């Protein structure tokens, strides 16, 4: 079956699903809104005092000027994945709620095709979010009077990393929805996992147990480490050797890609052997 047919069928399922569009609208407002909030907050601080402006310029450079703005907004936006995760969880638990995943198979899709349709849906959502962030970055970058557009395309790779993080973490949200089948339960567990267990392990490991850097390879952590903080944030937040964070990006891309592949392979394996009741 063609990819276009799978996507078209997903479109038919969603186009009158008002709850989905409402949440999507909120997502599409949230990303630019939060980027704008950071930008105006930074501008307000700068404009409040000339001395502060000078210190800020010296300490952190120009985070909202091209080309640094690509890194800044990709990094800030990468913390918002929990918002579109609601959409992904709706996308799969909806099918269980109405038993339509079973009907899709009865109507002729293979179980693999059903999962491919969801995977493509998540890929499309990732693409949409990345496009929105690119647009927001261009708008803020161009609107910023200090911004020089000469190095516009420099640092564009951070948008690619944002897309990888988003797809990876939305896939984790999908897995939880896929296994739990209930929207609220899945959302709760995803948020819990997103915020608590890995962070607790990381803090314990790095501050108390001092057991090396194994926690870099936890699913969410590895994903986050694909996109290190911009240099000015690393400078003021901790003493980690920034270059080592940058050097580790390819390694974390590989680890996250492996997690994502394993996650989807598990979904395919699981669905192939399960009874659809």
């Amino acid at each position: 079956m063609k990819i276009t047919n799978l996507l078209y069928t997903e479109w038919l399922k969603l186009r009158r699903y008002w709850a989905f569009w409402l949440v999507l609208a909120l997502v599409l407002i949230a990303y630019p809104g939060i980027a704008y909030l950071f930008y105006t907050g930074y501008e307000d601080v700068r404009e409040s005092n000339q001395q502060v402006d000078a210190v800020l310029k010296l300490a952190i450079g120009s985070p909202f000027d091209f080309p640094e703005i690509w890194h800044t907004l990709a990094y800030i936006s990468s913390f918002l994945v929990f918002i579109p995760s609601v959409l992904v969880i709706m996308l799969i638990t909806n099918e269980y709620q109405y038993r339509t995943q079973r009907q899709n198979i009865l109507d002729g899709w293979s179980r693999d095709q059903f999962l491919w349709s969801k995977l493509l849906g998540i890929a499309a959502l990732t693409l949409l979010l990345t496009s929105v962030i690119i647009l927001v970055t261009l708008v803020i970058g161009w609107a910023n009077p200090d911004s020089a557009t000469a190095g516009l395309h420099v640092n564009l790779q951070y948008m690619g990393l944002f897309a990888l993080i988003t797809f990876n973490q939305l896939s984790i949200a999908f897995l939880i929805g896929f296994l739990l089948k209930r929207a609220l339960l899945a959302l709760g567990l995803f948020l819990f996992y997103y915020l608590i267990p890995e962070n607790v392990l990381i803090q314990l490991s790095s501050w108390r147990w001092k057991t090396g850097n194994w926690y870099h390879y936890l699913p969410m952590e590895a994903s986050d480490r694909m996109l290190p903080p911009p240099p000015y944030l690393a400078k003021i937040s901790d003493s980690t050797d920034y270059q080592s964070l940058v050097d580790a990006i390819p390694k974390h891309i590989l680890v996250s890609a492996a997690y994502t592949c394993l996650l989807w392979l598990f979904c395919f394996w699981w669905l192939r052997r399960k009874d659809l009741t």
Partner: protein
Amino acid sequence: MQWFRGNSITLVAVFSVLQINNIQKSYGSVRALNDVSLEVPEGSVYGILGPNGSGKTTLLGILMSVLRPQKGNFKWFDGQFGDSYRKKIGCMLETPNFYQYLSGEENLRITVSISGRGDETDITRVLKLVGLYERRKHRFSTYSLGMKQRLAIGAALLGNPGVLVLDEPTNGLDPVGIAEIRELIRALSQAGHSIIIASHLLDEVEKICTHVAILKRGNLLADGPVSEVLMDEDVVEMDAANRQLLTAVLSDRGITTDTNKESGLVNTYFPKGLANLEYLNRTCMESGIILTHLSLRRKKLETRFLELTND
């Protein structure tokens, strides 16, 4: 494929649309299907009959690949469509499953997109056929149970598939709706469609099916043409002073008997209309047996069904 002597001159090839071999399925310690094998001839209306919990829906679920059997296999269309065979089959399994927030028409568009069966014109055709055309723009969640059932039947009819699998198709319908659906099934059968129906209603199977398989607690008790499996029978009840001698005499003449445990009467069975009381009486007289009781009663289909499915 099987060969049958159609009449005295020609041999007729009967293809089977479905072959099932030794299907076995358990849920924990409960055996839902136990080595079920059967064959569905092309063009037949094949009823899977059995009381609730007999394994009918489980069998259909396996045949439509939503359930996995532990053992056995099945083959649709002689295996020529591989895993995409479901696209050739219109199916309604258990309750109608549609997107609640979409209209009937929009739900059918999804069925068309997935199955590749039918188009916009066909959606209009089936909506008219199942009497939902006026409500086509209304959300599925506003439909009554009967309307939901009719939409599911409509979805199964999209693209005019050669094979239909219908699980309890008249569930939730009013008497008029039931009659309409049965008439529709007859018409589809006459047009050459093969139809598999699961039902717990003997009356339904008797009225619309050409073949039947009877399931009980996952075991296949009988299968074949309805006229053979659920044949009406003439039951002749007899009694004599010496019942043992009566049984022996009848047995010598190739007549099988059994004894009613409650009344003690000796029963013999004949196809409907073929019991000859005069012959039986004369045979007994010639053997020196004086019958003290001789009566004919017609065994109802329901009795036959209960006999098959009761312990």
